[in-house]
């Protein structure tokens, strides 16, 4: 069946089966930054943002269900060449190694900061506990989210270059 998905602000017409998972549809649309790591909705590497404020493991939603929603993936986060503070902070704090969990982790952190702009270390660990990372031991991811939270709260910092 033909569906239209709004991914990163662009309407994409896709031909899918009802059983096509959202993650597969996103990847088939050429946006391969969203990854697949398990079949049990456990690892979170496929996490994308739905309607700006909520996240979903895109392996646990059918593509047809995403019609009428806006989807944001890792590719939609930077403003042109300017990295989103989370992307910048993951780089600055060595919050990634192999990079496979990174897109999902960043999207999970993105919605976490929407709901809690100034989280404590404990709250970050809690909020990211639906996303697995095998390389970093999470410690630098926590630091990265703290840095991003700070950057986002400093209008001068985030907006200065706009």
């Amino acid at each position, binding site marked *: 069946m033909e569906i239209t998905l709004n991914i990163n602000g662009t309407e994409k017409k896709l031909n899918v089966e009802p059983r096509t998972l959202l993650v597969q549809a996103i990847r088939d649309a050429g946006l391969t930054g969203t990854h697949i*790591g398990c079949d049990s909705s456990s690892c979170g*590497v496929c996490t994308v943002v739905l309607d700006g404020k909520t996240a979903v493991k895109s392996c646990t939603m059918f593509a047809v269900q995403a019609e009428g929603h806006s989807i944001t993936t890792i590719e939609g986060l930077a403003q042109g060449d300017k990295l989103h503070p989370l992307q910048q902070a993951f780089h600055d704090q060595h919050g990634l190694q192999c990079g*496979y969990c*990174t897109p999902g982790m960043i999207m999970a952190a993105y919605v976490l900061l929407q709901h809690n702009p100034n989280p404590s*270390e404990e709250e970050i660990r809690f909020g990211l*506990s639906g996303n697995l990372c095998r390389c970093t031991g999470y410690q630098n991811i926590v630091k990265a989210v703290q840095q991003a939270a700070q950057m986002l709260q*400093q209008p001068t910092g985030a907006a200065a270059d706009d």
Partner: protein
Amino acid sequence: MSVQTPNLEPKGIQGLGKPIKRKEDARFIVGKGTYLDDINLPGMLYMALVHSPYAHAKILNIDASEALKIPGVKAVITAKDLAAAGLSWIPTLAGDKQMVLADGKVLYQYQEVAAVFAETRQAAADGAAAVQVEYEPLPVVVDPYKATDPDAPVLREDIKDKMEGAHGPRRHHNHIWNWSVGSKEETEKALAQSEVRIKQHMVYPRSHPAPLEPCGCIGDMNKATGRLTVYMTTQAPHAIRTVLSLVTGIPENNIRVISPDIGGGFGNKVPVYPGYVCAIVGSIVLGAPVKWVETRTENLTTTGFARDFHMDIEIGATKDGKVTAMKVYTLADHGAFDAAADPSKYPAGLFSICTGSYDFQKAYAEVDAVYTNKAPGGVAYRCSFRVTEASYLIERSMDVLAHELKMDPAELRLKNFIRPEQFPYPSALGWTYDSGDYEKTLKVALERIGYYELRKEQAEKRARGELMGIGISTFTEIVGAGPSKDFDILGIKMFDGAEIRVHPSGSAIVRAGTRHQGQGHETTWAQIVSEELGLDVDKIIVEEGDTDTAPYGLGTYASRSTPTAGGAMALAARRIREKAKKIAAHLLEVSENDVEWVDKKFVVKGVPSKSVTMNEVAFAAYTNPPPGLEPGLETTYYYDPPNLTFPHGAYVCVVDIDKGTGEVKVRRFVAIDDCGTIINPMIVEGQVHGGLTEGFAIAFMQEIAFDEQGNHLASNFTDYLLPTALETPRWETGHTVTPSPHHPLGAKGVGESPTVGSPAAFVNAVVDALAHLGVRHIDMPITREKVWRILRQSGIDSF
């Protein structure tokens, strides 16, 4: 106050010891990495596999007719079809052979039985579900101790009468090999004469590396050119190319292996798996590219497991705590085929590092390997070939001994460490340790955590009925395999290669035979070259993973990249510097003897104002080379390390125990590592965080378990437990630096130390918390229930 956006692009020379940010991050943080499943080729087909529900069964019939009726399904292959191509069995790294698709019988649950090729992923999956296989179940061997019972079922019909194996005689149809090192007689004598002796049985349970990206492969046979391109999630692309050439008969120059970005490896992506072979055969037969990407279930149930060592140790000591001798017997469960990834001469890997950091005069270690109805593997999961098992064994045993002697475990260790002046230290089991200062590292760790205050706190708490424990691990690793006199895989010596090409404008491209999976080679290799050649680190790009362009090398695993390729990189750079010096002399119009390398520049001796930079030399190499000198500035260096390196560390862990549920909470964990010279401290710290987390997971959660029928009990991430940010403790890290005397940079490698060293610290801490109840050992994973059982048996109960 405003937060400055940190500078993304540090400028200039950034050599050793600088925490520069990683060059490879740029693509990953915007979702532009290229992992295997991100690659799509025109006309590509998809493959799905059919798996056995039984752990041991005869195959009576395979009926693919329903599958072939599904629109889009192109072909279904079984062992029979592979046999026609001579590929129904392939050699393993350990000198055994393994089935590609089940040939007449299945030997473990989820074993690959048939491969389905289709135009879409959906059709391939539907096809696999529609293949009907008829089985006749056979008795199952799950317990390795029962594998060699006289009446144990024959697992390997193919070699049941072949009593000479790749590593010597076999004594039973399910026995693989026996391996031993050291003098049994002298060790037993020393033990008999020891004033104190301890014996302990312990199991290092079966585990799995489970990188978040599963394994996968695209076979792409171009029938017009005869060239086979294979995209593969492999940590060792060159070795794979050689193996593929040997098994398929395709000349090696007609095979190109490309290992794209890898989403974590940890040893899982070293071996050749049946799925790879099927995808390649499929491409050859069908004339189209074929992609296969594992499901998580396939990853956990069929690809390389790790550990599964069942160990018995005996240690002798004097009454005042000086160790005298150790004797170890280990039963190794290798599953259905011996596919352990070890250097050829070492079927039990480097397990003989089991004397650890201690000055044992006598030691003996013996290992028997057996077949069971489980998936093959025995990969070095964030481990240098069984070092993890050895380190756990000795570090756990030292605590058992301390308990027996009623000695503080830190004091016992301090009393028995190999002393700095004893290096190079010949160990009782035949290794020559390069360097170390174990006492210093332990003292730094004890100081950092406040060890003696914690012991006081523990005594007070114990008096109040509260349970806390402190665990120490002071491990020594053996990494960087290895020197060609001892180390090869399938005959290929374990050197590694590096190539440097300096361009006229002072930028460079650097290639290595290793393949990173998150370790940061694109940054550290550039730092080494920047250090050695004085080039701007941002003008150095690093490439790995394409066998058409990279120099030969054995790949990235076993903490070998820095000890081998890192050494090659430094020596390649130095070779370039030698040539550059000639060009510099030409530019400075002095003789070569009057030029020296000072502060990353060529300077005329005694005339500091007269100098040229490497950039100037590079330009001259192409525009104005000295007469008679070959133009250009590039080289390739193959480094055969003279010895292994021996990183060490001291870890201290503090735990609190919940008396109601048995839950163990890690309160603090201090890790002091000594990996010799540090190239990038930020990356080293990141490696330590990750490795500690995997050690934590192994100690408390991760286990590949089976039931009596051979059902795999950890076939997905709801049953194979990887810790999240919430369970993972906060790590406190630090370093001492004892350079390796033989490595060109003094570096030793660090990627695996924390996984090797930490499990014993966790277990020691839990046992320490319960020691006053008479507890001496608990096998991993330490579940709440294991602790709860001890508590309730001791009459401890609480909400």
